[in-house]
């Protein structure tokens, strides 16, 4: 036990000595959460648009005013030709244009199907969709305000779990996942590869300690580091951005610990397979970090991806971790609801642990 403690201490010294890496390990997630919280938002307000009013009639002018008066749109360009709209799109001055045909006023008053055209900058599809939808709702509203229309359907939309559509809600679980992967998997595989590269691993292996104990001693400080980091990120989310923890704190910590073990077993597995730091780093980045970022549902919804990528995502532990994490933190459900995800994660962990244990033994003989 004492020897184990000595190992742990030695590793802690190593970690504390490399200030730059330490700074990045804590600074990067913090910076990410801050950026996501403060700067990255999906809501749009005051989208710039152009009006090309060929009708120039009291009704068309009122419609234009109705659009700009809402706060959703800001009229920045008055177009006199279609070419003006093109130019405004190309210079990025507007994202949408409202074209009112010459006979709009007459048709409106005679009830002969008045028409308007909304042109959106389709090069950004999501923004285009959202803008077109807002615009058509507002045009409908314009009519409704003036005439009592039949079949009025009100939609009370409630954005549950994240009423203000803050992106930080989604990114806190994602950043936690990445950090746990980074420290527990990448850093462990690097530090083990380094011992191999410099030959100190042999030195450790001839010591009377059981080899698995050595590994435990080496990885323990990283477990600690990961947990501290995860708690830090959660605390930042909770205290700065009001991200709620609706579920049980114990379940949350338990889940984190499970995922740390998953990541560690992956890190050890990689280190048994590599000889140099460089290759450990490359393999970790390509096979762990990239998939955890792209195919886990962290930023991009998995169900929109092509079939092949969806298949690959089923063996990415981060996917299951993120689903369970979101469920417990943001939805406030118990582990029971996500039992499927948690068990898959546990099974994957077990498989990885077994594989790294086997590989490790082989290497000793």
């Amino acid at each position, binding site marked *: 036990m004492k020897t184990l403690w000595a190992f742990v201490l030695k590793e802690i010294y190593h970690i504390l000595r490399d200030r*730059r890496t330490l700074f990045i390990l804590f600074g990067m997630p913090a*910076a*990410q959460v801050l*950026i*996501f919280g*403060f*700067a*990255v*938002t*999906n*809501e*749009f*307000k005051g989208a710039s648009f152009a009006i090309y009013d060929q009708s120039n009639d009291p009704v068309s002018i009122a419609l234009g005013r109705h659009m700009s008066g809402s706060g959703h749109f800001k009229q920045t360009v008055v177009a006199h030709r279609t070419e003006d709209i093109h*130019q405004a*799109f*190309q*210079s*990025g001055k507007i994202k949408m244009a409202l074209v009112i045909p010459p006979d709009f006023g007459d048709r409106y008053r*005679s*009830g*002969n*199907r*008045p028409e*308007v*055209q909304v*042109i959106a*900058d389709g090069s950004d*599809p999501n*923004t285009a969709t*959202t803008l077109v*939808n*807002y615009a058509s*709702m507002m045009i409908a509203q314009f009519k409704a305000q003036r*005439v009592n229309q*039949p*079949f*009025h*359907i009100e*939609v*009370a*939309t409630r*954005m*549950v*779990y*994240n009423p203000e*559509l*803050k*992106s930080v*809600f989604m990114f806190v679980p994602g950043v936690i996942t990445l950090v746990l992967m980074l420290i527990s998997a990448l850093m462990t595989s*690097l530090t083990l590869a380094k011992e191999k590269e410099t030959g100190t691993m042999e030195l450790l292996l001839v010591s009377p300690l059981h080899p698995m104990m050595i590994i435990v001693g080496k990885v323990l400080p990283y477990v600690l580091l990961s947990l501290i980091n995860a708690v830090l990120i959660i605390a930042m989310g909770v205290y700065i951005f009001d991200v709620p923890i609706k579920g049980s704190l114990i379940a949350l910590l338990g889940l984190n610990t499970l995922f740390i073990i998953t990541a560690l077993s992956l890190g050890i597995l990689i280190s048994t397979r590599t000889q140099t*730091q*460089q290759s450990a*780093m490359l393999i970790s980045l390509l096979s762990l970090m990239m998939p955890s970022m*792209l195919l886990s549902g962290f930023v*991009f*919804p998995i169900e*929109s991806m092509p079939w092949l*990528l969806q298949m690959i995502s089923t063996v990415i532990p981060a996917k299951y971790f993120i689903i369970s994490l979101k469920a417990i933190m943001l939805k406030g*459900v118990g582990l029971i609801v*996500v039992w499927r995800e948690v068990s898959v994660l546990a099974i994957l962990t077990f498989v990885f642990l077994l594989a790294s244990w086997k590989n490790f033994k082989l290497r000793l003989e």
Partner: protein
Amino acid sequence: MRIILILIWKELLQVVRNRAMIPILTVIPIVQLILLSFAATNEVKKIGLAVCDNDHSTFSRRLREQFLSSDYFVLKLYTDDEKAAAATLEDDQADAVLAIPPGFERQLLRGQASSLQLQVNAINGVKGGLAGAYAGSVIQSLRRDLSLEIVPVVRQKPAVAAPISVSYRHWYNPELEYQTFMVPGILGVLVTILTMMLTAMNIVREREIGTIEQLNVTPIRKYQFIIGKLLPFLFIGLFDLAIGLTAGKLIFDIPMLGSLWLVFAFCVINLIATLAVGMLISTAAETQQQAMFISWFFMMIFILMSGLFTPIDSMPLWAQYLTIPNPIAHFVDVMRKVLLKGSGFEDIKDHFYTMLVLGPLLITLAIWRYRKTIA
């Protein structure tokens, strides 16, 4: 001049000799481009919908049909049990729950306003917002249909009732292909990151193996050294842009409306700034591992604040100012504007001018920070 040329020659020779480098410069960026363009999609389709119908009427069934016939929704559950509907949201079975209250049809026929309740899982803000918007437009289209079909029967004055019909068009990307939007941006990011990382790692590596010390005792001037490092990676960046554009055209059929010369010209001045950042990183790192961590740190911030995934104009004002010194933000915007919309120099001149100031500034900083002496 001869010295700069020989340094470039040496650098390119080393790249060609390194077996690992050729795939890193050719195959891997293409694979990344394809993978990222498919994976990094914020396209929202197949929104799982649970309908809790307590009206059981013609109108309520019609509303359900209206949802099903739109491309965006997939019906996961149709029930009248509120609890069951709510549970689908909890276990991620559905992304949205639509509740149709009893009396929905009756109220509408009487000419009263009727209300629906829509609950959207908004943990992913983009998806939640879009799901809400799509649902809104589906419901509006039902209303429009109803008023056209039934109004004459109810005998309202048609002149007043006829709604303003809105036709939409999406210019530059009529089918709203998400990849058309993402590929140019991702390509810009890939070229930037690759060259930045390579520069940073290359210099740190020379320091680690000691060759840089040998160069430092020669009469090489600092600017010669920096330019000798910069130009080869500039070529590599342009080369990767070229193969990336080719792949984008062949695989994703992205439009190229604007002048490719303009894209390459901007790439050159943009890469100068990018490479200078790489050099600055190398002056701050002692080992390749540190260089990698530091580059990663900056990359993350640069990418997140580049407008690649979320529009810059929806950021708070202070954050918008922070994107000014971010080369990736300029590159992504220029790529999208020129390729997709056919913007010309006039339209992107602000980006040009910013980079023309930023590039030399960063280079000067890198030359100043680079020490021929140790410690």
